[in-house]
């Protein structure tokens, strides 16, 4: 229900509004047509010696303009809410307009959108119009973090164009990341390991993409502390979002200082959940776009 004034204040609005319209109508009417002989015969006032004030009436079309505006406002008040608690003959409200728009949208597009949700990814990826739409959704929802081209940004938001998927690159895994969001949980090791141990581990991690330096003092420390999540060889674990360390692709940076920082303070990167913001159709299109 529209949230309109009621009781005394509704009456107040109705009375003041209608009285104002009637008073205005009378004023305009009498200025044009109510001039009496008495007025005509009166001496016209003269200001500053020669500035005479005459009785030239304003042009008649002004009258029709003003009168028309009053008629319009009365018709408007009958059709739309405005007069106190009267909802108007059209029963219009802003909330209802949105609901109607959605009804209209559903009626027009629901079937076509549902059909896309049931299509398989290859089919969607082969359809230029659908991929255009997917690209637009990406630009609107994702580009601010992952960059306009999906190449990641700011050493914080992952590249979506490369082959590394921290949380998995299968369509189901991507969909899960989109719907539920992701929260990385790399522990801050500073309170657990000593600074020297952290330096050794960081040094060893830097060798992992070349297979790992077997003689490195950091190797046993890595295996003891890190391998549970990142794997002995540094292959990572998509279930945990533990990134692959055996390639040379780095989100936060692969230099010694940054890796050391990651170890010391941990990383808790966060991907927001889009399950409520986006509907099935939009998520399906994004998965198609990303899984290419």
């Amino acid at each position, binding site marked *: 229900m529209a*949230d309109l004034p009621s009781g005394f204040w509704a009456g107040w609005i109705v009375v003041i509004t209608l009285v104002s319209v009637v008073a205005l109508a009378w004023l305009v009417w009498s200025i044009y047509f109510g001039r009496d002989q008495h007025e005509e015969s009166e001496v016209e006032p003269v200001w500053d010696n020669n500035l005479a004030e005459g009785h030239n009436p304003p042009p008649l079309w002004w009258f029709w303009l003003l009168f028309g505006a009053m008629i319009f406002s009365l018709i408007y008040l009958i059709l739309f809410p405005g007069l106190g608690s009267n909802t108007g003959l059209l029963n219009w409200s802003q909330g209802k307009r949105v609901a109607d728009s959605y009804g209209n949208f559903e009626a027009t597009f629901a079937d076509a959108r549902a059909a896309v949700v049931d299509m398989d990814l290859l089919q969607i990826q082969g359809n230029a119009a659908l991929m255009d739409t997917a690209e637009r959704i990406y630009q609107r929802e994702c580009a601010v973090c992952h960059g306009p081209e999906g190449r990641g940004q700011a050493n914080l938001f992952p590249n979506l164009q490369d082959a590394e998927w921290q949380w998995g690159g299968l369509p189901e895994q991507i969909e899960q990341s989109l719907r539920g969001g992701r929260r990385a949980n790399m522990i801050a090791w500073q309170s657990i390991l000593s600074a020297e141990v952290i330096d050794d581990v960081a040094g060893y991690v830097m060798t992992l993409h070349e297979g790992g330096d077997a003689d490195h003092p950091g190797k046993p420390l890595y295996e003891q502390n890190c391998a549970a999540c990142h794997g002995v060889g540094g292959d990572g674990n998509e279930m945990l979002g533990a990134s692959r360390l055996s390639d040379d692709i780095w989100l936060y940076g692969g230099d010694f200082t940054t890796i050391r920082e990651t170890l010391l303070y941990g990383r808790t990167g966060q991907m927001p959940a889009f399950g409520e913001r986006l509907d099935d159709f939009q998520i399906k299109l994004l998965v198609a776009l990303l899984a290419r």
Partner: protein
Amino acid sequence: MNGLSLHRKIEEHTGLLIFGILFVSSIGGLVQLLPVLTQDSLATASANTRPYTAVELTGRDIYMRENCVVCHSQQVRPLIAEVERYGQYSRAGEFVYDRPFMWGSKRTGPDLHRIGGKYSDEWHRLHLLDPRAVVPTSIMPGYPWLDERLASETGNITSKLTVLRRLGHPYTDEEIANAEADLEGLTEMDALVVYLQMLGTGFSEEDAAMQGGAH
């Protein structure tokens, strides 16, 4: 009497003229503002809307000080295009603890009423320090000094809460007593991000059931 002789009379008596002008120009306010001020349903908080915490309020004051409102509105209008882009349209009951409200009237940047939860805290930090770091084409200015100032130095939070309580915001004694401690160690950036992250979270489905509310 008719319009013209009335006109002449008013023209010749300044006191009458002043009264007439005041009377006519007050009509709009009498019809549009006065009844709304007395309409409880517009002054009742939405089910999920609560007063700002000390940190949020400080963030909000920084938002006001930096004049984010000249480029960002905080009102999602009831149109399908806006609801699709930003989320649920804004309801009157969500603004009852806004003094003054930050509705704004111009969108150089996007509306921010439903920005809460849309991005991570880290994104907001980067973006506020240097918008170009995350949106290469952005024309929004950077606010690097927010990271260097302490939130506790942004006005006296205890007296702010006390004044708001006098205006009817239900703060407890405890909240007011702890306000300064809450700001301890936070930068202005932290407070602003906390504020941004709570924006628009006061919406409840109950409001949705009460459609309309065109005022």
